[in-house]
């Protein structure tokens, strides 16, 4: 079919294709490019005002500076927020694995037909949004005296990590051949022993996906953290940066954009490696 096209039309097709790709890349990365430029510009270069047509804001008109990074790491609580986020993330990952691994295995192997229906039900709870639940949760959190404590997040974050991770792990366990456990069980292992010794070691890629997925969801979460954490010391990074670095009308755009950039890029890189598996989780059944 391609051979039927004349050379001119083929070149035109290539040009259109490249242009399309470049357009979408520009759209996608523009805010990140803008973060980079802002993070390293001197204030005199940054706050010129867009009415000045002669001053090109895309370029460094003055030499770049590390001042904004110095402010971010030296004079703000950014590192504390990162630590808080990491603490919540690791505890939530632990809870998620404890709940989702047995549940995922059970749904894949031990529950038969009703398990299949149940698994769809569990997946559906992932769709119950935080914006519906934060009001009742704020009641529960104050009843349990957990307001303004990171433990409130530890308690609540598994509500969105467990359903999706159970679903992902179920798919993963289903893809393993049954002989893995069965041969171990013929050799005298109990089912639990077979899971521990044979299935889990084979499931490391699946478990890793779940760890990364749960961790990124925790870092990205905004609504609950905004609702339950009020003191600046205890904020997570997704709330601390937009809420506490912005004071009144005084913006430290350089430091702000540096914080956004430094937090986003590592997540994006790691996420990219695991993306195909997440997408497989969303599209189970819809691709044949």
């Amino acid at each position: 079919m391609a051979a039927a096209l004349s050379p001119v039309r083929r070149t035109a097709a290539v040009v259109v294709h490249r242009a399309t790709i470049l357009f979408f890349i520009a759209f996608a990365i523009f805010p990140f490019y803008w973060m980079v430029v802002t993070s390293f510009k001197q204030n005199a270069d940054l706050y010129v005002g867009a009415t000045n047509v002669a001053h090109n804001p895309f370029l460094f008109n003055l030499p770049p500076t590390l001042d904004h990074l110095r402010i971010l790491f030296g004079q703000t609580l950014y590192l504390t927020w990162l630590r808080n986020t990491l603490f919540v993330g690791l505890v939530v990952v632990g809870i998620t694995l404890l709940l989702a691994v047995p549940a995922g295995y059970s749904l894949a192997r031990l529950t038969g037909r009703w398990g299949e229906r149940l698994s769809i039900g569990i997946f559906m709870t992932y769709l119950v949004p935080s914006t519906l639940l934060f009001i009742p949760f704020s009641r529960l959190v104050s009843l349990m005296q957990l307001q303004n404590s990171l433990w409130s997040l530890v308690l609540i974050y598994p509500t969105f990590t467990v359903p999706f991770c159970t679903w992902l792990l179920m798919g993963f366990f289903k893809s393993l051949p049954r002989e893995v456990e069965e041969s171990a069980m013929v050799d005298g292992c109990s089912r639990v022993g077979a899971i521990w010794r044979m299935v889990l070691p084979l499931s490391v890629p699946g478990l890793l996906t779940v760890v990364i997925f749960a961790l990124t969801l925790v870092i990205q979460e905004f609504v609950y953290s905004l609702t339950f954490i009020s003191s600046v010391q205890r904020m997570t990074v997704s709330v601390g940066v937009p809420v506490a670095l912005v004071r009144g009308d005084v913006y430290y755009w350089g430091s702000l954009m540096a914080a956004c950039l430094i937090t986003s890029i590592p997540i994006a890189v790691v996420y990219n490696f695991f993306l195909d598996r997440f997408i497989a989780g969303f599209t189970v059944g819809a691709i044949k």
Partner: protein
Amino acid sequence: MTSTTAVSVAPTLHAGETIRRSDRRLGIVMLAPALLYIALLVAVPFLLALFLSLTNSSAGSLEFSFVGLQNFENVIASPVFRRALRNTFVFTFVSQLAVIVLGNVLARALMKSFHGKAIARFLILLPWAAPISLATLGWLWIFDSTFSVINWLLKVAGWLGPGQWYYWLGDPTLGMVAVIMIHVWRMLPFSTVILLAGLTSIPNEVREASAIDGAGLFSRIFRIEIPMMKPILTVAVLFGVVFTFTDMSVVYLLTRGGPYNSTHVLASLAFQEGVLGGDVGRGAAVAIFLVPVLVVLAIFMLRTSRRAEVV
């Protein structure tokens, strides 16, 4: 231990009964903690949200009394709420329409092999992976009233004449455009990857056969590929709608619902009333309006998954 060996030697059981009783018990034990957690922390709070919407509870105290449907009546009578309800639908519909059209174009472009494809894919996916609150902050700076780089570009291009200026977040219409733009930017990678998975799942023979039969590009896309991709298109649309419809971060951080409460969505209004304003009952009532749409989406999703399983 002996029973396990005995059963595994026994002849195959009838289909659907292949699970041994001891395994079934173990299955329940392994499933119970997750189910219990979900019941306690998703199902109960969900019911609590319904319950609170019928009360006059406020953030300061744990006392309350029933007020029946009073909250709902008050909410529906409020012009701010009606505007938020309309905005939620407009934002979701417009952004998802754009995402599906652009996502199809982009997925098709990414189907071809070309130099630097892996890097292109990574860059295009960035918006979906970045934390939404931080990404929105980036956009807040792009739309800044004094330093907006978009305005600078429009000035240079001559679109904005002398004395003309766009206050992106200070004008209801421009504010809505900004919110929609961010939603498109964020959801496009997600839909593209899903659509790409759908496109790659169409066997090449189908394309070749349609080419031999003389089908042009457009009839191939609209008569063959789109019908074949219907389940996956549905998945992309449904998840996109769920994520956009229930989001409050973009509006909260970008405009705080302003100017004059003109860009609120249900979720951000529920936050303003229920958390910032302390009127828990009213906030819950606003959030409850998300439920009917979510139920419809869930039903759609179940039907899609069932149909796909049959096929």
